[in-house]
């Protein structure tokens, strides 16, 4: 029972594991860029989770074709699409901050 449930909800489980891995990187890795990579992994894992929620068995991509009735849920996809692009922006901003911080430290050492 448990096993079948884990298997059928594999995407959820996987997304949580990925989230934990990302969280580990954010919490325990000293390197700033590693932390940012961790944030990105967490982000994608949540996207995966959302897409998994919107999934429907045997559903086609939400692109209306005549004669097909079964589609996956388009709403999470729209949300994720927006979040993806915002994700680039935040990642870039974080990286810029990291670079600036690094250079400031370098300056202080000199």
């Amino acid at each position, binding site marked *: 029972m448990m096993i079948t449930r884990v*298997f*059928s909800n*594999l*995407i959820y489980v*996987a997304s949580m*594991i*990925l989230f934990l*891995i*990302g969280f*580990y*990187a954010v919490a325990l*890795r000293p*390197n*700033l*860029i*590693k932390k*940012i*990579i*961790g944030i*990105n*992994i967490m982000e*994608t894992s949540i*996207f*995966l989770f959302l*897409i*998994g929620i*919107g*999934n*429907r068995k045997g*559903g*086609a*991509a*939400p*692109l209306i074709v005549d004669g097909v009735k079964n*589609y*996956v849920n388009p709403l999470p*996809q729209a949300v*994720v*699409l927006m979040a*993806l*692009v915002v*994700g*680039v922006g935040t*990642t*870039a901003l974080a*990286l810029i901050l*990291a*670079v600036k911080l*690094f*250079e400031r430290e370098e300056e202080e050492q000199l």
Partner: protein
Amino acid sequence: MTSLTVLLVLALITLAIIIVSSRDMLAAVIFFSAYGLVMALVWQQLGAPMLALAEIVIESGIISVLFVVAVFRTSKDDAE
């Protein structure tokens, strides 16, 4: 849930562990790009080709390039 999805998911987790545990930043970034590609394939399997397209371009294209630039800017042996 096809067997291919299971395989891809396992690959995702392995890649994530490699990324996090790697000591080499550049290798981590390259693996992160590969991670994005696999993730796009998973999304394609789950019925989201639009997102897969965006993910391929963003994750393994733009973000990787940004990371590479940042890694080069922050690495110590960058001195000319």
